[in-house]
């Protein structure tokens, strides 16, 4: 146990930041600029601190590290934090994306800047909390708490149909999650604890597992989202401000994937095994159907949103193979998608800020006006379709490898998804970037500003780095994944 409660610091720095922000005036442009700088520095500070996790993280230790445990509500429900190889990368992904989001909102958010930044910092607290908590009640608290700031972000600073979208987002997710709450309470009553470490050792009867698994599944299925409960996602993405989409695609969806790994397969292995074919079917349907839907989209954000659903299909495929490769693939796919889809939404945001439309048909031939933009966009598009050498490839490859070893049919169908992904991604790219620049209003377009380059640069580097040399990432993930898989095997036998 480390001396400094570094995870609590990570979680509560944004909260302290919020108090600072409350004290800053917000009545003219100058002060709202100050607010943005303050929020950016707070988020950046958090990022730096989270990097220190990487350095003091023990790669050979598959158990939870940086553990903190204090009595909280009552015996059995404690304030228990800790991270292992599965969660550390998500924490860093979160702390990395939040400053990027704030930076991306510098120009696009014009009113109520203070509330906007406060919402973002609050959201960061909740997101980090989700990945760090080792207590189910604490997890639920953070998992659901994130709805409040996200509801406001979409609803206040969103597009035209923002009210409809944000209500849909909130109520869908809430309705999914309340059953998880009941399941958590049931677990608390029957075992006397909601401590994850204890529960991972606990053996529920098969019947209990089946019901509890379904309850958890409803929540995660809506959040990740799986077909056919994905419909809130395109709406939320389309109407959210750019930074909202980035954080939604980048982190919020991953909370459910993380939940699957940590809770569904960890605590209910029998049920997970029982339901695995069901998950595979849903995932494969999601991959193919949403890819096809993506093909016909007129709206850039909607297209990327549907592609997110398809990518998440790979994640669930990988996780429920119960193989080290599959779970690792799922995690890497999530990390990669967190970077790539976030970047794609940022790319949309760049042109949206200039032309204020997301309709694909309004663009064309941007390459001649915006070469740097076209270059960055291309890298992310290629990563999104899983080109070897980019981060998207590693995850998809591992997942497909593992699913081939389980069931060939599912693997074949899943692979068609890769082809479809190439189709819709490249077609999107062609329609926006290539062709002749004939539309009048496009002649006003200008290339990436320095601020935008700063935003894209780390994302480009990470995408290529993970694609070319995934070893460090795998080194971090592997021990904990192996431990999870061994535990499942042990419990199943």
């Amino acid at each position, binding site marked *: 146990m480390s001396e400094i409660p570094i995870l609590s610091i990570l979680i509560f720095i944004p909260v302290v930041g919020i108090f600072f922000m409350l004290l800053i005036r917000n009545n003219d442009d100058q002060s709202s600029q100050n607010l943005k700088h303050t929020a950016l520095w707070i988020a950046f500070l958090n990022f730096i601190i989270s990097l220190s996790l990487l350095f003091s993280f023990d790669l050979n230790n598959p158990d939870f590290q940086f553990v903190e445990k204090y009595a909280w509500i009552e015996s059995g429900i404690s304030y228990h934090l800790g991270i292992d190889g599965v969660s550390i990368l998500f924490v860093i992904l979160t702390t990395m994306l939040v400053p990027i989001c704030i930076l991306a909102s510098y120009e696009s958010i014009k009113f109520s800047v203070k509330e906007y930044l406060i919402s973002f910092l609050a959201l960061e607290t909740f997101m980090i909390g989700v990945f760090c908590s080792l207590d189910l009640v604490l997890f639920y608290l953070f998992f659901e708490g994130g709805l409040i700031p996200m509801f406001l972000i979409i609803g206040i600073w969103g597009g035209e149909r923002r009210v409809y979208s944000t209500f849909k987002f909130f*109520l869908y997710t809430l309705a999914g999650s309340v059953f998880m709450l009941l399941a958590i309470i049931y677990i608390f009553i029957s075992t006397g604890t909601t401590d994850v470490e204890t529960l991972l050792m606990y053996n529920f009867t098969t019947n209990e597992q089946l019901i509890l698994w379904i309850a958890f599944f409803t929540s995660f299925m809506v959040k990740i989202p799986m077909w056919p409960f994905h419909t809130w996602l395109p709406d939320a993405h389309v109407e959210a401000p750019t930074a909202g989409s980035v954080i939604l695609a980048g982190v919020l969806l991953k909370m459910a994937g993380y939940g699957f790994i940590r809770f569904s397969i960890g605590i209910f292995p029998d049920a997970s095994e029982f339901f695995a074919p069901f998950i595979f079917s849903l995932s494969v349907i999601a991959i193919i159907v949403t890819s096809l839907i993506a093909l016909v989209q007129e709206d850039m954000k909607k297209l990327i949103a549907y592609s997110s659903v398809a990518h998440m299909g790979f994640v669930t495929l990988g996780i429920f193979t119960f193989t080290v490769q599959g779970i690792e693939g799922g995690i890497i796919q999530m990390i990669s998608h967190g970077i790539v889809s976030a970047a794609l939404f940022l790319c949309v945001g760049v042109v949206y800020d200039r032309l204020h439309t997301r309709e694909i048909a309004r663009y064309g031939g941007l390459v001649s006006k915006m070469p740097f933009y076209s270059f960055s966009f291309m890298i992310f598009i290629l990563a999104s379709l899983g080109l070897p050498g980019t981060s998207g490839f590693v995850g998809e490859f591992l997942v497909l490898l593992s699913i081939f070893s389980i069931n060939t049919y599912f693997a074949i169908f899943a692979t068609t998804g890769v082809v479809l992904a190439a189709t819709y991604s490249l077609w999107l790219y062609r329609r926006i970037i290539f062709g002749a620049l004939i539309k009048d209003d496009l002649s006003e377009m200008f290339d990436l500003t320095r601020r935008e380059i700063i935003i894209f640069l780390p994302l480009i580097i990470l995408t290529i780095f993970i694609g070319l040399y995934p070893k460090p990432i795998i080194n971090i993930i592997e021990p904990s994944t192996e431990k999870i898989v061994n535990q499942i095997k042990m419990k199943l036998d």
Partner: protein
Amino acid sequence: MQSLVYILPEIFLFIVATVLLVTGLFLKNVKLINSLAIFSLLVAVILILNQPFQSAFLNSFVVDEFSLVLKVIILIGSIASLIMFVSSKDDLNINIYEFPILIIFSTIGMMVMVSANDLLAMFIGLELQSLSLYVLAALNRNSLLSSEAGIKYFILGALSSGLLLFGISYIYGFSGNTNFNLIAVNINPESLGLIIGIVFVLAGLAFKVSAVPFHMWTPDVYQGAPTPITGFFALAPKIAAMGLLVRFLFNSFGEIYIDWQQIIFFISIASMMLAAFAAIAQTNLKRLMAYSSIGHIGYALIGVACFTDEGLRSLLIYLMIYLIMNIAVFAFLLSLKRNDGYFENISDLSGMHKNHPLRTMLIALIMFSLAGIPPLAGFFGKFYIFVAAIESEMLFLAIIGVVASVISAFYYLRIVKIMYFDEPKEEFDGSSIKSLNLLYYPSSILIIIFFIYPSPVINISEYAIQSII
């Protein structure tokens, strides 16, 4: 004589109320009388905290942990509504010195209610409380709505008291006793008359806590009564009636809980579901809060239906959190004021975050808390209720509970939506709400930071229930 010592706080408040009544006649200073009333309620809190635990008047009036905690909660509610009164009396046309005195009388009634261990003591407390409330509801004589509210409340309240009395006579007839403990000893589980008696008493009490199907008065009275009084309705009487309900059911009919459990079960479900749907269509904030309180009572009743320690504990936790949330909401309602006019329609809130960012942010969080979204206090209230329900294997109640909470999230969100997403209107006054800040900020901060250190509330509830089970 000895017994009189045990009702010292009640006697004290009674003397204060009478003295204030006479003083008020000569001294037309409403503010002074109000301050004295607040002060004497605070003194009553101290007296209650220092009382020995005893039963008085042949065991028909008990002072125990349960009554102590509930009395303090009730007094806090009364004090809060007196503070609301002083901040709004001039503008609402209720600048009448009887207001604090009626509140005190009503409070005495409620204190008797939570201490009552006898059917007659129960009825006396209930009537003292109700009669004061009838007058309070109609306090604004110039307003048609207020008079209507008063009359409606009075007629329906009298009807419910009649039912209650009818039930009491049945119970007395079939058990030969009026004392809760003696009823429990002499109970005849086979007796049908006793069941009829319980049903009628429960109907009367359900009216007081405004549980479906005896809720019809609530929206009209909430809307018609002046806002500080509505706040009082929402805060204290329901908590007192809930305490009475618990003591009545647990002390005297614990043995035949199977029989009354299903009644509570039904009214709990009906309250949660009806409130969730009916509130969606409301346009008036006070009516909306009426339905919201019906819904919350439905959740609290789950705790009663469980008939376990856990259930009772969750009930008390829920009531405490409910009190804090309602104090915040009604203080907020009173601050919606512009040029001496008050606003009650939801649409009046439109876009108010532009002009009042901090106030709006807090009220939005309170709405989320009412909806039961973590990490706010409202979530913990529901959490404990569901823990109790699942522990006593009432999974069905828990499922209905979560479904209703998702539905009701919609209308709380609608308020947030209107405050944040819609176009702004004119500013509200900021200056006149100094005394309201006293209620508004502490209660909202309590709601927000509750999750950091929830044990005091839990410990208090555990302390309170030890005398019941």
